[in-house]
Each structure stands twice: as structure tokens, then as C-alpha cells.
């Protein structure tokens, strides 16, 4: 019978783990390097104008020469995104818990939530600037938070309610009440769903913060930098700002993904190759 057992991922020595990590990442790294090389080669070979598409080497150089304006601006905008993400995601999780606990409330509220989600939230950026002040970070956090709210709400709610009926029956047979059922079944069951929502929300938060910047705000925000540089045909600088935004966005996503792996070692998706 033991032959049918799937062995857990062996942790192995540090060296072995690094080696395996390299193997996993090698194909992607090759594609990345090849893509950059192709970009550089095409721009130089076809003599594409710098304002249309600067070569990656120029962008990287600008990333360094403009570091004193770009990096603080990027951090400023990341704070907006992160603040909005925290607010939006926590609100969504609290709401999902309420809706799962009282389905009557869910039936009354969900149609409006779905309708509200169809509203292009980004269009409200000038309004939130007006409400919360264009110069402070709050107005951008609000946009980011609203963008994060819905996907996290829907995912969490699905996770909390997609419990197998027999799991509930089993808990009831142990004399469990609703609080126990939430704590021991619904919330652990929802964790993978919640993390899916949280990961999607990192991307949305970055978009919300940067687009929020576009509609005005402090001069040292990334969105403002991108807009201003593009406005004066400094496209290499604009590209460098976009590059930083991408790096931060990817790092944000990766950090949440790492947190997911830490909290959910039990999940079958933690098996190697299952992702």
C-alpha cells in the first residue's frame, strides 16, 4: 500500500535546493535574456528612433543616472499602492466573512457589488483627488483600494462557501457551532482562494496608484514622472519609470506569492511542478 503514497517534496540540502531552483528558472531566464537581446538588436539594427522605442541599454542607464528622482518617486507610488492594497483587501475579507455568515445579507448586497464592479473605477480618479486632496497619498490609496476590493471579496466568499456539505455535517456531529465551523473549516478552506485574490490585487493596486498619479498629485510620484517625461519627449526617462513600476509590481506579487507558500505548505499546489 505504501507504494501508492506520493512522497512529500524532499527539502534536501541548501545546495540541492539552489540547484533545483536553477533548473526551474533556467528556461525563463533564457527567454528573458534572449528577449532583451532581440529588443536591443532590433532597435540598433533597424535604427529605430529613440522616442519610438529606446534600447534596453539606454533605459537601464537612465534608471541609474536618474536614480535620485526615479527611486523616491517609485517608493512614493508604491506606498500608495501598498496602502490601498491593505485597505481594500482587509475590507473585502471582512465583508466576505459577513456575507458568508449571513447569506441573507449576501443575497441583498451581492447584485449591487457586481454592478459596482462593472463601473470603470479608474474614471473616478479625478473625483477622489477632489475628495481626498490631489497632493496627498490618500486619494490614490482609495482608488487602489476600490480596485482591489472586488476580486478579493468574490474569491474569499467563494472559498468560504465552497465547503463540502459533509465537512459541515461532520463538524456538527462534533457539536460545533457556526464560530467553530468558520474557524476550523471555512477559513482554512478559503485560504487558497484568498491568496489568489490577494495576488491579483497587487497588480490592480499598482495600476490604481499610477493612474491616480496621472490625474495630478505630488511632483515626486511615479505616475506624474511618467506623464511629465512623456510630455517633454523624454521617452527614455518615461520608459525607465515604467520599468521601475514593473519591477516593483513583480516584487509585490512575488512577495505575496512567497507568503502564500509559507502559510500553505499543506496545499497540494505546494507540490513541485503542480503550479
Amino acid at each position, binding site marked *: 500500500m505504501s507504494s501508492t*503514497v506520493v*512522497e512529500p517534496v524532499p527539502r534536501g540540502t541548501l545546495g540541492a535546493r539552489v540547484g533545483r531552483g536553477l533548473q526551474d528558472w533556467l528556461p525563463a531566464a533564457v527567454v528573458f535574456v534572449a528577449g532583451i537581446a532581440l529588443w536591443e538588436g532590433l532597435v540598433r539594427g533597424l535604427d529605430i528612433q529613440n522616442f519610438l522605442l529606446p534600447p534596453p541599454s539606454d533605459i537601464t542607464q537612465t534608471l541609474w543616472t536618474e536614480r535620485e528622482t526615479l527611486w523616491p518617486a517609485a517608493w512614493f507610488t508604491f506606498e500608495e499602492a501598498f496602502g490601498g492594497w491593505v485597505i481594500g483587501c482587509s475590507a473585502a475579507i471582512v465583508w466576505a466573512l459577513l456575507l458568508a455568515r449571513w447569506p441573507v445579507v449576501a443575497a441583498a448586497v451581492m447584485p449591487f457589488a457586481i454592478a459596482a464592479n462593472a463601473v470603470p473605477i479608474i474614471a473616478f480618479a479625478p473625483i477622489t483627488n477632489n475628495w481626498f486632496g490631489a497632493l496627498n497619498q490618500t486619494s490614490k490609496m482609495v482608488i487602489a483600494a476600490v480596485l482591489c476590493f472586488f476580486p478579493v471579496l468574490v474569491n474569499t466568499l467563494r472559498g468560504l462557501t465552497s465547503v463540502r456539505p459533509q*465537512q459541515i455535517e461532520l463538524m456538527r*456531529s462534533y*457539536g460545533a457551532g457556526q464560530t467553530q465551523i468558520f474557524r476550523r*473549516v471555512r477559513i*482554512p478552506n478559503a485560504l487558497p482562494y484568498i491568496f489568489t485574490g490577494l495576488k491579483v490585487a497587487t497588480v490592480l493596486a499598482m495600476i490604481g496608484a499610477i493612474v491616480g498619479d496621472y490625474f495630478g498629485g505630488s511632483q515626486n510620484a511615479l505616475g506624474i514622472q511618467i506623464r511629465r517625461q512623456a510630455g517633454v519627449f523624454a521617452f527614455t526617462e518615461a520608459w525607465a519609470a515604467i520599468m521601475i513600476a514593473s519591477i516593483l509590481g513583480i516584487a509585490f506579487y512575488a512577495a505575496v506569492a512567497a507568503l502564500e507558500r509559507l502559510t500553505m505548505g499543506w*496545499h497540494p499546489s505546494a507540490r513541485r511542478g503542480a503550479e
Partner: protein
Amino acid sequence: MSVVSLKKVAKEFGAGGVKALEAIDLEIAEGEFISLIGPSGCGKSTLLRIIGDLIQPTAGDAVVNGKSAHQARLDRDYGIVFQDAVLFDWRTVAKNIGLPLEMMGWDRGKRSERVKEMVELVELTGFEGHHPWQLSGGMQQRVSIARALSFDPSILLMDEPFGALDEMTRERLNLELLRIWEASGSTVVFVTHSISEAVFLSTRVVVMSARPGRIVGIVDVDLPQPRSIDTREEPRFAELIREVRQLLRRGGGFDVEEPTPTGEEDFIVAEEQLQ
């Protein structure tokens, strides 16, 4: 004193809808192994859930250990095993088995001691730290049985627990279950589709009719205890199987598609004979 006492129990689903059960009278004594058998949709799982207070009967009374089924559930008199193991993916084997104990507030030391005993009982030593997805179906079901027995419930309710397993695993688990039942002295109510499984395991087999489910007859299984692999070879085993099959036929278990008037008459005759 009866452990389970059902009086005129009936169940309808929906408002004036489908009659699932009708006039069920049944007394189960302490230490009995009772099988419920009948055609699909005859309400045997419903009956099991009424005994376990997971479903409320529309009429009649279910008394368990001299109190209401509801009180018996709150007193944790039931251990339940379903067709699926219904394990919690985020818990290891040991923590799945210890779940009811956790909920009953056992301290860590006492808990791990009991879990260890249970793991030995179902012969899963060495797998305590595994997660459910790392186990075969038969092993998962053994974890589920260990969990149901961990808190020493007076009644074990089993809903087709081996229905999803292959024949070989099933026969081995049948023997294991009998060994556990003899050791624990608990009362078992066992729902099954398999005539030979019912006869092999039980002290009495309760045969139910097609919907609405009624008790067509009860077969006393007078095979010697303890049962062994050789039990299936005895002539008496074949006779008892024939008896059960005849009762099923009278209850419409073999011609569900065409419930002829003749069938109905047979069915009534059978009931009169029994009384």
C-alpha cells in the same frame, strides 16, 4: 435498553414534496452491528442522518441513548464516517484524527496519546505527519474511521464507507472494521449497497423498499462470531444472502422501473408476515 429507538419516523423533502421515508420503526440494541440496505434513493442515508440529528424527521421520534437525537449529537454520542473520507486537507493525518478531541478541549498531551493509539488501531503508524493527498483512498478512509472512533462515541454511523474502494481493499477493511467493532464494543449503523457486505458484517440486516422507504424486513444474521475470510464460504452465508435478496425484490429493489400492482401486494404480504 435500546441505543437507538425510532418510532413512526417519516421524512418528506420540500413542501408536500417527495416522500423519502414512511413509518420507520426500529430498535437497535447496544453493541449491535446493523446494516441498512435498499435500492438507490430508498432513504437509507436519510435515515442514518435522522439518527445522527443531521436531518430533522417530518414526523415521528428518534430517541438515542434515552434522549433526543439532538441532545445525543451535542453530547457527542456519534462518530460518523462517510463514503468520502472527508478529511481536512490542511491538517496532517494526526491532526485530522485529533480534530474532535481538539474541539472537546482535550489537552495536548492526552490528545497525542489517544491519536497514537488510534493510528496504531488502523495501522497507519509512520504516516502521522502526512497530508491527506499523500494517502491512497483506503488509507484516507482508515484515517476517517480512526477520527470517528477517537473520542469513543457510543454509536458509529457509517454511510457507504467502503463504496468508493476497490474490492480487495474493501474486503480487508471489512475485516478491520469488525476487529475494531469487537474491540470497542460500540454500536454500528452501516449503510451499504452490497448485499454480501451487509450479511458479512452485520448482526442484523434491515432491508428497505424503494421510495418511499419502508422497512420490508429484518434478517437476523446468525453466522458465528468472529467472522473471518472463511465466513463467506459457509452455506449459511449463501442462504442469508438469498433471504436478503428476496426481501429486496419484494420491496421493489430489483424492478424499480416497473412497480407493478403484484409487486405492491407482495410488499404488503411481506410486512404482514413480519409483524
